[in-house]
């Protein structure tokens, strides 16, 4: 009997090929931030502590589904995503495990964390206005809302509404102005479009540079990357809504999974990621703003100037995401 059992398990092992043997001093991360933006941080952690960090990258929705499907047999300790909307959804799906940590509370301001402590932001990105330095004077610009005005007819470029960044921006508009006024603003934007919406922010910046349109809305790091490649870019950043609520902020953040196999090691990693040492690497590889206010952004990012940021808790983006998508559809924003 025992021999049969052994034989069977040997056979099973060959069929399965790899086995998921897990070492004690490791942390497993599912990430929708891509390899080159996270590996430097994890490598630094491994070098410092000896704890190895394994990760796979994919879009957030499939990763969340995988965590949910694995349930109690989880392999992932941490879920790292971009956009607060995604983190909020993960929280709603019940795949995150809230935990409080004095280190995180001290390092990250509360509007960049879940009120339930299910996740914390690590880096910030501003979704702001960009304009052509050839055809627009910065004095003509004021707010996001003003881009719906008649003077911008045929001059505006937008990215697709299918991107979560635009959904989050719309969600905060709804939170600020209410549904009716926001829908009017969206309709105004769509009416002002100079061409079909783009599938990514970089293409939008290139379009402004080439003269296809005059203004647009992008995440700052796309501008940073393109500017690095093309220093003579005829496009500049503008910080809108400085007289009222400030620039729309979103984040990239991390949460502990419900059934994390190495919860203690994972919490330590998250805590470390909020410290100045990690914050600089994490934000600087992608020209983002560190979520820890005590950490200075990189020199390139600092050169864009200081601005007033919206203090609305970012989890609003998640709460109003579905509403925002429906509204964007109604407004004809593809």
């Amino acid at each position, binding site marked *: 009997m025992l021999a049969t*059992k052994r034989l*069977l*398990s040997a056979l*099973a092992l060959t*069929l*399965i*090929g*790899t*086995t*998921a*043997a897990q070492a004690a001093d490791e942390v*497993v991360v599912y990430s929708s931030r*891509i*390899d*080159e933006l996270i590996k430097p941080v994890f490598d630094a952690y491994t070098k410092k502590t000896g704890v190895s960090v*394994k*990760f*796979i*990258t*994919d*879009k*957030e*929705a*499939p*990763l969340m*589904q*995988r965590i949910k*499907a*694995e*349930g109690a*047999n989880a*392999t992932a300790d941490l879920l790292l995503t971009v956009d607060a909307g995604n983190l909020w959804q993960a929280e*709603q*799906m019940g795949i995150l495990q809230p935990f409080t940590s004095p280190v995180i509370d001290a390092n990250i301001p509360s509007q960049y964390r879940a009120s339930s402590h299910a996740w914390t932001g690590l880096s910030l990105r501003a979704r702001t206005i960009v304009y052509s330095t050839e055809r627009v004077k910065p004095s003509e610009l004021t707010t996001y809302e003003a881009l719906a005005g008649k003077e911008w007819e045929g001059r505006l470029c937008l990215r*697709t509404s*299918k991107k*979560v960044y635009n*959904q989050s921006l719309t969600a905060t508009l709804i939170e600020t102005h209410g549904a009716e006024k926001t829908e009017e603003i969206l309709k105004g934007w769509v009416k002002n479009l100079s*061409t*079909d*919406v*783009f*599938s*990514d922010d*970089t*293409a939008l910046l*290139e*379009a402004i*540079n*080439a*003269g*296809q349109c005059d203004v647009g809305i992008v995440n700052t790091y*796309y501008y940073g990357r393109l500017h690095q490649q093309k220093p003579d870019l005829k496009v500049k950043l503008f910080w809108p809504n400085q007289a009222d609520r400030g620039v729309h902020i979103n984040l990239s953040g991390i949460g502990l999974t419900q059934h994390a196999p190495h919860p203690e090691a994972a919490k330590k990693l998250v805590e470390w990621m909020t410290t100045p040492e990690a914050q600089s690497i994490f934000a600087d590889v992608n020209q983002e703003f560190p979520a820890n206010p005590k950490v200075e952004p990189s020199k390139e990012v600092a050169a864009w100037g200081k601005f007033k940021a919206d203090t609305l808790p970012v989890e609003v983006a998640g709460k109003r*995401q*579905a509403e925002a*998508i*429906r509204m964007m*559809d*109604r407004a004809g924003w*593809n």
Partner: protein
Amino acid sequence: MAHPAQRRWYPLVFAIAALVLLPLSVLLLSWQSIDQQIWSHLWDTQMPRLLGNTLTLILGVGTGVTLLGVSLAWLTSLCEFPGRRWLDWALMLPFAIPAYVLAFVFVGLLDFAGPVQTLMREWFGSGLRLPRVRSTGGVILVLVLVFYPYVYLLARSAFLAQGKGLMEAARVLGQSPWQAFWRVALPMARPAIGAGVALALMETLADFGAVSVFNFDTFTTAIYKTWYGFFSLSSAAQLASLLLLAVMLVLYGERRARGANRASNERPRVKALYTLRGFKAVAASGWCFLVFACAFVIPVLQLVVWFWQRGRFDLDERYAGLIVHTLYLGGLAALVTVCVALLLAFARRLAPTRPIRAGVGLANLGYALPGSVLAVSIMLAFSYLDRELVIPLSTWLGGAGKPLLLGSLSALLLAYLVRFLAVAYGPLESSLARIRPSLPEAARSLGVSGPRLFFKVYLPLLLPGTLSAALLVFVDVLKEMPATLLMRPFGWDTLAVRIFEMTSEGEWARAALPALTLVLVGLLPVIGLIRRSAHRNS
């Protein structure tokens, strides 16, 4: 009533069908609850436009691949004109380019801010503009250029297999080349052309990568939006099962249209039937070269330029790993998939009972689903198996009681199997059909049976078809993205994964490095495919 020998095939075929049915049943289970808010929203604001777009795309791509595939196959297989010898195989090369890569190359090259329009503005001022590339016409053009090789490959072998007797008979009876084409060659090649168009349309319906570069909304993009935006996987699965229903109708129609037509098995031609001269020869060369240039030369050149500008700085020692993983996965998946498809093809031939035919039909459905939806269904099915089967079994055996399927290499290979079984099955079935039953019967009467019959009689005859099947699966696995992303074991990044990471950040130029490597790696098997199909008629 099935013969007992036939019934021996049942467990095997049903087990394979069950494997494919497992993820499909996940889709059906999604209908347990319906999210009315999402459905009424989709219905009110999205559906008419999405269905209109999808229908336009299907009609446009269907017409386009038929025109391109058939005209090119006709020219290269029956006519002689300058350049025919190399264009004959060169026209297959675009098969190595993934649709999403051609899409981002075309948009990058031809959009307003791209190099072509920028040059035009510099030379001629801003008055002169190209038609918008990010438009319905643009999407159709790109998809036609990536998917026409399916029709070309199948139509070409059909034309070649028609032999010289028939066309010469048509000529003797006073038919002009055109009349002979319309009345003899085309009707006889119709099953092959139909099969090619069906493959191209299934790819079109399931495509997400290319259409999202154009931001062209189709039924499939709505599936993704419902999942990624509304986070309603069940509504997305419901939409996907509707898409599957549409695909089943297309396939059924294709099978019906194929009817009783059988490819004939004449002696092949040695010489070209029509030698083109003068204007006709120039037009034929020009047309073939134009297609080859647009579908292959220009995109590859653009990738090389981007690689030089940006991609080369990313080249590091990790690339070796990416290439090895890509090849390893493609090779293993091709092996597994072809073996299983062979079993199915034999079952279908030796035991053509109704249950077997149904089982084989079901096993071939995986190809039609959008990749991510299939990937997540497979993942859900595997995690269910892990929970209900693997963990109890492993605990009973004294093991660790850990899930073994999800996140393992074998799970990924099974996912590829489910997705690409149909790709391998097609060529195998048709090459098996070409072996007359009298041949194995004669072998049997000479006392050859069992494994010897397979290795001595069937295998040598099936080898060409088997190779085609393996190469098709291999190239498809190289290009596959969603299942690889979701189910790869830790550390198993492939070239397609790298392309995803770059394009998801809008870094087109940097995606050129993995894309170019993928095209180069995929070219070798495609060239193998061409050499093999060229051998047959020499």
